[in-house]
């Protein structure tokens, strides 16, 4: 689960670094007993979710697949001019597996 989460984070961060026309990317993570939430946010160009070039669609799908494989979710919120936020969530066992 951790590997999948880290992989997805990395993809989201690299994607933001490549496409967002901004100097700053925020990453915030919260770990609670039953889940881990990671938010990757940039205040860059943003994009229209219905109008993605084939290359970029690949990234979003790739992140979603990684998450789905471990029972997690990915929510991408974006708007042209408003930046982008990728929210990754994975469930966790209260004790043991991580």
């Amino acid at each position: 689960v951790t590997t999948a989460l880290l992989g997805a984070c990395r993809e989201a961060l690299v994607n933001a670094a490549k496409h967002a026309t901004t100097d700053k990317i925020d990453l915030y993570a919260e770990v609670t007993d039953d889940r881990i939430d990671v938010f990757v946010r940039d205040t860059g160009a943003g994009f229209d979710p219905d109008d993605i070039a084939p290359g970029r669609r690949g990234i979003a799908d790739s992140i979603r697949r990684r998450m789905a494989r471990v029972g997690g979710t990915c929510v991408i919120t974006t708007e042209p001019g408003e930046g982008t936020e990728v929210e990754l969530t994975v469930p966790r066992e209260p004790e043991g597996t991580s």
Partner: protein
Amino acid sequence: MSDTSNSDAGGIRIVIVDDHELVRSGVRGALDPDIDVVAEAEDVDQALEALATHRPQVVLLDVHLPGGNGAAVIRGAAARDIETTFLDLSASDVAEDVIEVIRADARGYITKTISSLDLNDAIRRVAEGDAVFSPRLAGFVLDAFAGAIEAPDDPELDQLTKREQEVLRLLARGYAYKEIGCRLTISVKTVETHASAVLRKLQLSNRHELTDWAHRRRLI
């Protein structure tokens, strides 16, 4: 929009305290015209002298200084009954620095990666008495107050309300006050009120919550 005459009525008088000349001149260059740098200082003693002489409204204070540190300036000012507002501007973003200065009574904490726009905004904000949280600080505070204790000594001080947690969470995620207001459908003023309340809790709550947290992180 700003008053070009730079009268006392509109201007904000500040002192910059940092031991690096480059940083001081960089900050000076980034300030809006209505923010007036009345003095600069590069160590604790100089800072206290400048504060006593000029009585600025806001002090931009570096955490690490020769002859002490940011907290020493804040405590020194209090001891001399100098009334001013401290805004920490630091290269450091580590927990111990942040918490130490905030608890010494700084009104806000920002890091040197901040943009000019946000810097000016932060100065205005603390000049009005509101708290300024860097995303990292917001994260630390959430961490520090996380985990309910069975019977808090003072529920008002030892815990964050749901709303305060929401605001902090959005701050930690990198949202600006205006954006938080939109997202939670509250006014920016209300966001500021919540942030200030959290700051007060952080400063006044020396109870189990914060002490345990600091212990866990080996801060004290």
